[in-house]
């Protein structure tokens, strides 16, 4: 794990990169990294996240700035910018059931090729997918998802990069931290090693590449 400035962290991300971004309606989203992505005007990004938040918050800022080429998400309903971008053909949107999306990411971070889920069987979600029967029950084969970068927000990070999360700001964060080539973390508090008890570490430092220094 390396400590890095927010400017240098975002400079690592090329135009066209795929990003998994933590957060649920902006709660638990690494807002400083998003702001820096906007400032550095990164283009044509592929974002994989639960949702696109609301205008002016989290991923909503990237949508408003026209920086996204594609979004893979479970819900865009509370961000009219994303809906308009999709209708105008400016942003490709792949809608995935929330439980399927998180499991595809978990599979990507766990060395699995995909998962079998009953969710979506018999609906428009099954179009183009393999249906597999196991013990008489139908499942869809949903393939694993990985990304170039995971942008994670934690509550506590220790000097080694061990992470713990706060309440509902946990959501996608620990799962995406497993599923990207490069993991960049911001934290509310950076604390000495040992402050997070071993039992309370959710994401082990070994998977964290960069910890963004606090201001």
């Amino acid at each position, binding site marked *: 794990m390396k400590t890095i400035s927010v400017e240098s962290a975002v400079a690592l991300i090329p135009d066209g990169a795929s990003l998994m971004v933590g957060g*649920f*309606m*902006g*709660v*638990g989203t690494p807002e400083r990294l998003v702001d820096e992505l906007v400032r550095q005007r990164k283009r044509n990004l592929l974002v994989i996240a*639960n*949702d696109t*938040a*609301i205008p002016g918050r989290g991923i909503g800022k990237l949508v408003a700035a026209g920086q996204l080429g594609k979004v893979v*998400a*479970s*819900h*865009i*309903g*509370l961000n009219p910018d994303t*809906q308009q971008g*999709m209708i105008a053909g400016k942003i490709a949107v792949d*809608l995935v*059931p*929330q*439980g*399927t999306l*998180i*499991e595809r990411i*978990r599979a990507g971070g766990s060395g699995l090729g995909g998962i079998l*889920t*009953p*969710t*979506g*069987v*018999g*609906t*428009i*979600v099954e179009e183009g997918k393999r249906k597999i029967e196991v013990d008489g029950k139908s499942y869809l084969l949903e393939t694993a998802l990985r990304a170039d970068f995971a942008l994670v927000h934690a*509550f506590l990070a220790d000097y080694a990069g061990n992470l713990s*999360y*706060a*309440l*509902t*700001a*946990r*959501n*996608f*964060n*620990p*799962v995406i931290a497993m599923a990207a080539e490069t993991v960049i973390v911001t934290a509310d508090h950076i604390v000495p090693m040992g402050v997070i008890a071993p039992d309370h570490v*959710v994401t082990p430092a070994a998977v964290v590449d960069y910890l963004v220094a606090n201001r």
Partner: protein
Amino acid sequence: MDAQTVIAKRIAQELRSGMLVNLGIGIPTLVANYVPEGVNVFFQSENGLIGTGPIPEEGMTHPTLTDAGGKPVSALPGACTFDSAMSFALIRGGHLDITVLGGLQVDRHGRLANWMIPGKMVPGMGGAMDLVTGAKRVIVAMQHTAKGKPKIVNKCTLPLTSVRPVDLVVTEMAVIEFVDGRATLTETAPGVSVAQVVEATEAPLVRSEKLAEMRL
């Protein structure tokens, strides 16, 4: 009593102590206001919380304690938080006793459409498909008709949320149970006749032998 209150009050009677329950947005959220005295349930919010409590007073909100709409909530003593993989393992894995969701249409066999209107409203399914597919019991909370048109129909014209049939539909007019794949009228709301329910319903209704008036 307005339609939403009738629906929420009736659904609250389905709750039993110890159940894990997920309430969707809209009318389903109101169910939490009418939990019968002495009944203690665990409310789950799919963004990663069990033990969701009331909306906190102004000035007492916390930015990392929110519901599935991103709005501030409180956590009751004994609450716990977890990541989204765990949250949906609870939902799909047979651990969730009841999910209460809104509905756009329900077909004669109990199949629900509630997540999109092609060309008009494409918000994404969020957790709805997992909830309907995975919960032990699925309850739909919705108005009986929309702009005078029945919402309990022969065949859904809107895209389905799941092929798994729902268990119960509660409207301001009636309670309809899906028994052996057939819409069965079990209760009518006070002041509503069977004929009125049938008139407002497109799907054929079987009259339950135990047909009774809704108690509120």
